[in-house]
């Protein structure tokens, strides 16, 4: 075991643990905070892959902006146990079965795939560095990149239009 593997292990345990706590914690604010911890551990994985730009953008966009808005809404709604509607027991059962089926399908699909036999190669490649990533995005993938930016723009305009409606 070298340092990279130890770091990978720590980050993976952290990611899974915080993701589980995010689902299981009763308080929605705690859920959001655990989700932020998950994002951090995923950013750690990106750094192990030498994808520095992706790691920092993941933190700026998700942890720094989107999760702040999530927290914002949840804090203002003042959710607590009394306000929570009672869930039907059958509904829970159906949800469990559906989720279990999805899990089963995913496991079955990935069981024999190539991925299993490949180790993640850490700190090889420098495609995640900002210069190379920018060159790729603006040469090979320029069309999908621009299309997705138009999608974002239209979403923003849509949000403003909805917000303006009295």
């Amino acid at each position, binding site marked *: 075991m070298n340092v990279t593997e130890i770091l990978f292990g720590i980050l993976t345990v952290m990611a899974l643990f915080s993701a589980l706590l995010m689902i299981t914690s009763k*308080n929605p604010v705690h859920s959001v905070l655990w989700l932020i911890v998950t994002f951090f551990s995923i950013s750690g994985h990106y750094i192990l892959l030498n994808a520095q730009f992706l790691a920092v953008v993941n933190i700026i966009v998700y942890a*720094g*902006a989107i999760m*702040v808005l999530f927290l*914002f809404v949840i*804090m203002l709604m003042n959710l607590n146990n009394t306000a929570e509607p009672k869930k039907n027991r059958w509904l829970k059962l159906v949800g469990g079965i559906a989720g279990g089926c999805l899990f089963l399908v995913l496991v079955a699909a990935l069981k024999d795939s190539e991925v299993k036999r490949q180790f993640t*190669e*850490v700190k*090889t490649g420098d495609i995640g560095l900002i210069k190379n990533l920018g060159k790729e995005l603006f040469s090979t993938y320029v069309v999908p990149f621009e299309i997705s930016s138009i999608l974002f723009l239209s979403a923003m305009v849509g949000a403003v239009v909805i917000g303006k409606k009295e």
Partner: protein
Amino acid sequence: MRGNMYLLQIDKFFILEKFLLVGFIISLSMLVAMYATYAERKVAAFLQDRIGPNRAGIFGILQPLADGGKLFFKEEIIPLASSKTLFVIGPMLAMITALLTSAVIPWGPGLPIAGRNVSLQIADINIGILYIFGVVSLGVYGIMIGGWASNNKFSLLAAIRGASQMVSYELPMGLALIALLMLVGDLRMSTIVQDQIGKGFFNWHIWYQPLGFIIFFICALAECNRTPFDLPEAENELNFGYHQEYSSMKLGFYLFAEYINMFISGVVMSTLYFGGYDIPFVNEAGLGWDPWVLSVLGFVVLMTKAWIFIFIFMWIRWTIPRFRYDQLMNLGWKSLIPLALLNMVATAVVVLWLKK
């Protein structure tokens, strides 16, 4: 597995020098923040024609120690209905995010020690300035978590104000930075400083990006929650803001984090727009001086620039009244963002035109 031994290749000297540097910079930030509180009181006194603190030591020079001691020995009160863990985590986060930013700042040209060139920068990472941006965007959690965990409506309102203010002002800040990065062509802080050295002080980015600097400065004021943007702690509307329920050193951490943020944003602005450790009107490379002297001089110059910014921050605080909340949002979204976009497009056009 191949190519993954890089963490083990780090030698012992490297670890030792980084630890020393981290320790030095963190103690430095604390010390500067301590004396910034003293300077704030003296500047306020000067602007209001008072004397200011003058009891502890000569000229009241021991006042920060007395303040700190007082905060440490005060009773610690955790509200019964608060969420206790988060209540404690709030000020911790505020302090951690304030201290983290200094990691990518180049503090001097570098020292040769025992045949090695020791860089005076903790980490010269590829994403440099984006790292600062990421840490600054996390600063909001200290306020939000503290405000929410206090279980107090005023605190919650202040926390939400603070969060929306910080998220809003990050946008023009980022746009102003993009224009700067187009000039430099690199995100590394060391390259940004190298780019500004030479030609007296006419290579400093302030001459190429005056509008960008003004936008960045206004956003830095807002990100530090300094007047005229200190809406999260507007005492006449929200009692005391997000740290209303806090007492003793937890309150101290919140107040202290603000001063560290002020210091760091002063350093960042000096590095980005005012040449960092570059000594104006001196061609350092041509002097042939000992690198040690140059490093110390560069560091002193950087600190002087940062202190000038801290003074301007204080000057503004004791001169300009607080904005109203809708004015704050209008300024951010309807003035600064269009201005920053304009600045960005104009810079892009000029950069392209000059390259042809």
